[in-house]
């Protein structure tokens, strides 16, 4: 049985797709057969971030409608043979997704894959609800600013009440916090919420802090998940996230300003 992970946030532009691509790649690189699904029907992005946009023939909706088989629609990643991408349809909208259809696809994937990463669209409408419905774990991606924190809080409420686990009264979805686009210098100057402020409101298990980094944008443009950029802070931070998710104990980094970070980095590594 696969573990189904939803990457969600409520708010748009906080880094859901970047995170989905990075953690899916991280899990696959460690040898776990992983599928990543784009639930953002109509605003297909994941294929760009994964650099497979030229190879899309069939999509998620085709599979749901029975117009293509899963094997026809799944795209094998060019960097990692354990990673497969199921792209969204760009020509349809969220109404093309159905609860049964999504359930069927996830069931079929579960037979063959270890992890299924669901990249949720923004908002709290159908696409987002279906992306989280079958989830076992949720990565809540939050930026250190008030509207993102509130939207994440709203999402957590939905995770706790509208998922299959909630409806069946099973063990609740495991919720993890991913604080992205974090800039310690701006936190220090009071322009950005600090980790403590965010945790005060959300009180979630922190899986990692992804520092604001130019490498994220360049990785997106190049179509290579940022986790593969091992020199970048964001890449290392995602690597930590995957390790922590899999149970490794790694101290949090990138919380303090640069000097602190280098001291910690070299102190920890050398």
């Amino acid at each position, binding site marked *: 049985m696969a573990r189904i992970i939803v990457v969600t946030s409520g708010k748009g532009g906080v880094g859901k797709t970047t995170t989905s691509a990075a953690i899916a790649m991280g899990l696959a690189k460690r040898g776990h057969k992983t599928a990543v699904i784009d639930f953002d029907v109509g605003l297909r992005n994941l294929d760009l971030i994964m650099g497979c946009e030229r190879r899309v023939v069939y999509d998620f909706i085709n599979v749901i409608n029975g117009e293509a088989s899963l094997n026809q629609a799944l795209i094998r990643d060019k960097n990692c043979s354990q990673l497969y991408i199921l792209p969204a349809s760009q020509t349809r909208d969220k109404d093309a997704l159905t609860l049964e259809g999504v359930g069927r696809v996830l069931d079929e994937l579960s037979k063959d894959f270890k992890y299924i990463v669901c990249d949720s669209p923004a908002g709290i409408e159908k696409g987002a609800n279906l992306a989280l419905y079958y989830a076992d774990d949720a990565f809540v991606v939050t930026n250190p600013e008030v509207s993102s924190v*509130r939207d994440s*809080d*709203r999402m*957590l*409420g*939905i995770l*706790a009440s509208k998922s299959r686990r909630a409806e069946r009264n099973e063990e609740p979805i495991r919720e993890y916090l991913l604080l992205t686009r974090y800039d310690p210098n701006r936190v220090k100057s009071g322009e950005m919420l600090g980790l403590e402020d965010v945790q005060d409101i959300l*009180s979630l298990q922190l899986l990692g802090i992804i520092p604001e980094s130019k490498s994220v944008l360049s990785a997106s443009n190049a179509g290579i998940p940022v986790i593969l950029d091992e020199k970048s802070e964001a890449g290392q931070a995602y690597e930590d996230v995957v390790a922590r998710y899999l149970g490794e104990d790694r101290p949090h980094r990138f919380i303090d300003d640069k000097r602190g970070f280098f001291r910690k980095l070299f102190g920890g590594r050398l």
Partner: protein
Amino acid sequence: MLNPSSVLEFKSTTFFTPILVLNSNDMAAIELSLQEKINLAPDFFRHSPLVIDVRELNKAELDFSITEIVEMLRRIGLFPIGLRGGTEQQNSQAQKLSIPIDAGRDHDNGGVAQQSSGAGGATAADTKTSSTEIADATPADSKTAAATASTADLSVQSVVPTTFAKSMLVTQPVRSGQRIYAHGDLVVMSQVSAGAEIMAEGNIHVYNTLRGRALAGVQGNTSARIFCLDLQAELVSIAGDYKTSEHIIKEMQKKPVQIYLQDHALIINEIA
């Protein structure tokens, strides 16, 4: 023109009222004894509504007139609003005086009677000679408490006129966008996020940070209260009277507080 549907609305509410249990048919003695009690706590009894309980009188087959009792009570400034334990004849007498009949609560009355004899314990003699017995359900009122303390034969009991709703316990965080409604009291062990709404017909207890909206006594119970360990609420309301965070004074923000209603004003007190 007003929309016809907005002219009036029906609401359901639960309220507490003293019950006057009569043990004697001696009108002069009752009046004297009542007057004494009113003198002890004039503010509490002024224009107080009352339910008359004549079950004991009927049990002892004493002769009395409902009209006489009602007139006497009105004379000394009380408002009888109901009759309990009357015979058919007494009930029709009461109805002629526009006094509603409280029927079908025999088990309740039994409970009260038992409690009163138990509470009377040490002062059994007093209870017997006393012609009136006041049962009231506002022990929170300090004046009544003072009155009780000074008179041995005045026994105070809680009488809940309707069956009470169970309290509701929430242990999960109440997240933004979630709403919780409790028919009785609501106890929340986790935080209540901004954008969340918790409502209760009774009291609200939040043993954590309250950031969302909290509405207690939503069916009109003005004695409902809100308690929380860390007040950062967007809005607090009791029985429809509310304050937004803008109007909650700074000194009370982020403090453990209780919130209650006094003369239609929300009072916020720090719990030391």
